[in-house]
């Protein structure tokens, strides 16, 4: 008995292909099941998250007794029950870790993204372009979803089109003049960290935080057991899945909202804000010190062009959680894409969208009719320089590294050269001595050209500094 709707040649290719699944969350679980049943026998899966109760309504490879365990490992175990003859290797790790370099990616015939956070998707995009491995990227949001082939030289890359950026708000609005409920939520988050948190927000690594929210943006682990007492000198760390912490933030946000005459929100909705935007309240430092996004208001920088001030300060978007059906549909389409790539039928892999409503021609799952031309100004798949508009007397080297290079440009280990001098090194500690200095202090002037390289991503870009 064979899968006779496809050629025996293709069946052979399926059997001998090695595929990487990035993410074992909502889409990942469905995808792994489909791969195993379609005849893929050599699969690796990577995810750093652990299983939470709220995953169980759609991440069907996991059950109650698995809560708290690593997603990748449990997904592997569940798939082996479907077919014990399949080779599945699981990694409980961050795909942005430098252990997974270009040579790691090169060993696969196909890479399948089942992620939902921008930073990790952008990273895998660069790795696959660098390793010249076809990437099938995917995403879902509520009733909608999309599948996209990223194939070097043929299609758009993940970063050719603008992606929604994390939202941030002027500090004065948060502090003294809240007008939206979201402002109160962010204020309450400050309050929580000021009262109970010892670790400074500044120390959090933004890139890591974002990657931890992979696979549907769920939190890590079940933290519902909050009965234990903290030892002397210990502090609480903010975690949206920690029930008492969430209760505190929800209650104080609503009190503040009430005081300012803003309609209240349920705890559900408030928690949703943190889930729909993993960065919410994380950019505090930059928001407080200066208008972080100001320096991206540069016209020839398409990626950030949309971030005008009014957009930046707009309310966080609607809460759009993931559901089982959309994930299942998208995961099915990913495998059909995979088969067509293996079969050399790239022209049948035009980006497909799952819609909530029928379009005027009655289509619910709609493929694009042509490949969108690549963006010649893309800062990843074409060699472009970007302008960074900032106050060089205020922006520190550390800010440049953490918020600009790692935060906004999704780099992992950036190395920055000013003329022949390294001002940010990928070697740990090498440039720590100057990290608190401003760009001006290290000799950057308006018009300076920074050469930025990330060896992990095999990616390089030039940044022109424009003083404002």
């Amino acid at each position, binding site marked *: 008995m064979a899968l006779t709707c496809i050629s025996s040649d293709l069946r052979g290719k399926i059997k001998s292909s090695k595929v990487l699944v990035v993410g074992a969350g909502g889409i990942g679980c469905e995808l792994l099941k489909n791969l195993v049943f379609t005849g893929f026998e050599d699969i690796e899966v990577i995810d750093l998250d652990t299983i939470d109760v709220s995953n169980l309504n759609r991440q069907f490879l996991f059950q109650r007794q698995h809560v708290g365990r690593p997603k990748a490992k449990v997904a592997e175990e569940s798939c082996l029950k479907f077919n014990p003859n399949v080779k599945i290797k699981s990694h409980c790790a961050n795909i942005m870790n430098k252990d997974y370099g270009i040579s790691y990616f090169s060993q696969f015939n196909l890479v399948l993204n089942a992620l939902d956070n921008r930073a990790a998707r952008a990273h895998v995009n660069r790795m696959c372009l660098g390793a010249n491995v076809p990437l099938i990227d995917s995403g879902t949001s509520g009733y909608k979803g999309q599948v996209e082939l990223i194939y070097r030289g043929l299609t758009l890359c993940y970063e050719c089109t603008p992606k929604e950026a994390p939202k941030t708000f002027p500090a004065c609005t948060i502090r003294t003049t809240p007008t939206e409920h979201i402002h109160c939520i962010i204020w309450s988050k400050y309050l929580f960290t000021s009262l109970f948190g010892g670790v400074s927000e500044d120390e959090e690594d933004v890139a890591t935080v974002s990657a931890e929210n992979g696979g*549907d943006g769920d939190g890590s682990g079940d933290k519902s057991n909050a009965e234990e007492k903290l030892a002397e000198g210990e502090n609480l760390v903010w975690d949206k899945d920690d029930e008492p912490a969430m209760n505190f933030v929800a209650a104080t946000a609503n009190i503040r909202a009430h005081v300012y005459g803003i309609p209240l929100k349920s705890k559900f909705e408030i928690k949703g804000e943190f889930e729909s935007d993993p960065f919410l309240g994380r950019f505090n430092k930059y928001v407080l010190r200066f208008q972080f996004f100001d320096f991206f208001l540069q016209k020839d920088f398409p990626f950030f062009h949309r971030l005008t001030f009014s957009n930046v300060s707009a309310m966080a978007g609607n809460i759009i959680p993931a559901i089982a059906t959309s*994930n299942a549909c998208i995961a*099915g389409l990913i495998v059909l894409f995979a088969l067509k790539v293996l079969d050399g039928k790239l022209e049948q892999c035009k980006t497909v969208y799952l819609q909530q409503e029928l379009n005027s021609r009655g289509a*619910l799952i709609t493929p694009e009719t042509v490949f969108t031309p690549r963006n010649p100004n893309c800062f990843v798949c074409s060699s472009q320089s970007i302008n960074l508009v900032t106050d060089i007397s205020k922006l520190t080297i550390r800010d440049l590294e953490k918020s600009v290079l790692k935060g906004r440009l999704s780099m992992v280990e950036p190395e920055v050269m000013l003329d022949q001098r390294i001002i940010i090194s990928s070697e740990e500690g090498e440039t720590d001595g100057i990290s608190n200095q401003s760009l001006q202090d290290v000799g950057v002037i308006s018009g300076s050209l920074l050469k930025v390289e990330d060896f992990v991503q095999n990616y390089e870009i030039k940044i022109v500094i424009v003083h404002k």
Partner: protein
Amino acid sequence: MVETSTQLTADEEKLYDRQIRLWGIESQKRLRTARLLLIGLSGLGAEVAKNIVLSGIKSITFLDDKPYTKELAFSQFLIPLEKIGENRAEASVERAQILNPLVEVSAETHKIAELTEDYFTSARWDVVIAIGQEEPQVKRLDAICRRNGLKFFAGEVSGMFGYFFTDLNTHSYTKTIKNRLKKDEVVEETVKSEMKFPSFESAVNQEFEKGSRKLRNLDPSYFALKILFKFREEKSRNPVSLEEDWDALDLLRNRILAKYDQPKERVPDEFLEALVGPEMGPVCAIVGSILSQELIKAISCQDEPHKNTFFFNPLNNKGTVVNLGTVADQ
């Protein structure tokens, strides 16, 4: 469907947290009163079972008289591989139950053709889903459901092709419409609405005016389904391989397309090839997911249903909905 005022437990709120935020607590309450009968535990049946059990309905009964055979090993993930020869409904219960312990999952093994109307009118179910059944059987089941006020779905996957049909008879639901007042100001409003559905019999007997726009715009999937139904009527089985069945399929294609005055290229060879053989897992996932979401909408009486036949075209990955048949007395 009965509405309930009972509150969700804290346990349910945690488990269904994400979906409640998408479709609201009222929909979730309606879901958990719904009792479903799922006929045909094929690969597509397993996908529907998974999605709908995860969503948190009250109960689901699997009904199937066929044994688990090897061709299901490409899609039926609810049955362990070693259970060859066991009844498909019974063999699916254990894994389906593990997906969500809050849902009652059970199995029955009656011969579908021998079931009398009493079986369906026993007030045990609100919705009937018939997967992979013969055309006359689907007609009969739909007619019974219409007479007895049960919501009805039918569908199947063959190779890489799939479809499903929806008959909600007269369906009342709420939907949200957006009124754009100014450029940046959109006001949402929830309104009540009603939709009448044609029977399956009316849908399959749909006629098209020669050269009409509707005929021209039909996805090739429509003709593929006609070919598949006819093939099964003649051979009492689905096409299994190109060597064995190509000639029969080719002949049926010519006959059916001629009837509609359509050129042979309307259903290319590649499409015909995609019809052959066991259900493909990823296609079951796609068709099953759309069917399940329509089920959830129907049960929760929320959002406009996609009336009334969904086709998945595996050549271009397109999923379309065509309104087939006419509503009587209108």
